């Protein structure tokens, strides 16, 4: 009598087991990457850096607080300027001139059509021996974009919410970019209000096509732009007072 062998059991691998296997592998990879990157960062933070970082953070908080207080004090000044014991007609005229000057200075929030530009660091792998800075957005890139926008007819510009005025600075402190001394993080969003065609003129402007345009192409900096029908840009908040100069008077 021959013994019938039990049917050979087919090895069935459930679909969910494969998914979980793949997912666990992904977790392992991402977890290891995180672990490595956090270790690397901790290794290089010295005690001197820690002190300076604390100082910089305190100063940034102080700056935020000062800007808020300036905004509040300016509101108070404006409320005084709308009431007077003197001639109402004269006061109305001066206040109208003042409102115009504030608008022309960038001290008033504005709205209108324009263009939005976004730029961020490259996601490309930095080839060995090449400077990592080539693959990061630099202060020069933002300056060139802003220059091209002004040259294309922009009437008001912000970089990541910081309104540009006659004294605005855009500069690097290491890998950080400060605009109006406010440290900003990528992606940098540049919004500009200006007449029709601003976006097209900007894209063909030499200030854009030249330096920053080449860097976008060569190093793969992330870039996007589009025209917009309606943008709202905040007012500049900061110091508008001169310390080393003054408006010329008849006595000068």
């Amino acid at each position, binding site marked *: 009598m021959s013994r019938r062998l039990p049917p050979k059991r087919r090895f069935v691998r459930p679909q969910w087991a494969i998914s979980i296997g793949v997912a666990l592998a992904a977790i392992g990879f991402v977890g290891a990457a995180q672990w490595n990157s956090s270790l690397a960062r901790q290794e290089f933070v010295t005690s001197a850096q820690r002190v300076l970082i604390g100082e910089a953070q305190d100063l940034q908080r102080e700056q935020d607080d000062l800007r808020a207080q300036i905004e509040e*004090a300016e509101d108070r000044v404006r409320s005084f*300027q709308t009431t007077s014991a003197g001639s109402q007609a004269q006061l109305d005229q001066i206040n109208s001139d003042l409102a115009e000057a504030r608008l022309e200075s960038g001290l008033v929030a504005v709205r209108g059509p324009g263009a939005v530009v976004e730029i961020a660091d490259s996601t490309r792998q930095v080839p060995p021996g090449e400077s990592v800075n080539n693959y990061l957005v630099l202060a020069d890139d933002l300056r060139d974009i802003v220059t091209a926008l002004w040259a294309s007819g922009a009437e008001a510009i912000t970089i990541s919410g910081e309104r540009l005025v006659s004294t605005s600075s855009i500069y690097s402190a290491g890998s950080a970019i400060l605009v109006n001394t406010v440290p900003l993080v990528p992606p940098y969003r540049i919004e500009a209000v200006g007449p029709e065609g601003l976006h097209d003129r900007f894209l063909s402007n030499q200030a854009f096509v030249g330096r920053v345009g080449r860097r976008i192409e060569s190093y793969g900096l992330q870039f996007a732009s589009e025209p917009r029908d309606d943008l709202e840009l905040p007012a500049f908040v900061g110091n508008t007072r001169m310390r080393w100069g003054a408006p010329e008077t008849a006595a000068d």
Partner: protein
Amino acid sequence: MAGRIAQLSLFVVAGLIGVLLVGQLRSQARPIELSNLSPQELSGLVETLQQRNVELTNALAELREQVRDYERAEVQGQSTLELTSEELTRVRAFAGLEPVVGQGIAIRMTGPFDPTAVNDLVHELRNAGAEAIAIDGIRITGRSVAVLGTSAIEIDGRPLDETVEVLAVGYPTGLQSSIERPGGLKTYLEQSLDVTMSIETRRNLRLPATERDLAPTVAEPVE
């Protein structure tokens, strides 16, 4: 039963992946994270923030003084017209719509410079705290940039000479050392563009008002 366990496991695993991916993306984002700056860069940043906070503190003190002036004027039944007129002149000077006098530096630049060099110089001066700038008698407003015109470099539609004089109102020593610092803009322009620059501090600068109409045509104030 096995199906439920599978679903639950997938749910937990997907959640874990999500959390880890967010963490990883955040850690890869370019840090303004101060921990990535070198001690020298951090010192520079701290110094800049300190200077700017002093300026903001001074500006706040002046604003509070202005509020007190208005309060006094109100109590004494005086008109606020005069105070508001002064404010008008001050804001117009800030915009570049009024001539400005003060101390600062004068830069003479000669050579084959291009619009980028002129714009970089303006930015450098602003970074160094310039309160007002004029180039060849053209007052630089927030919207003024150097562009290549038909036959010369132009600012606000006015051509520049081959030798330009740049006047900047601000802390004279600070402005000068910023431009002349080793590896700074002066060195860069002299070496890369063969430009010659001479810088001197001045006590009595006069910068004209802009001739440009700064009134916006499409930007409207937000009430």
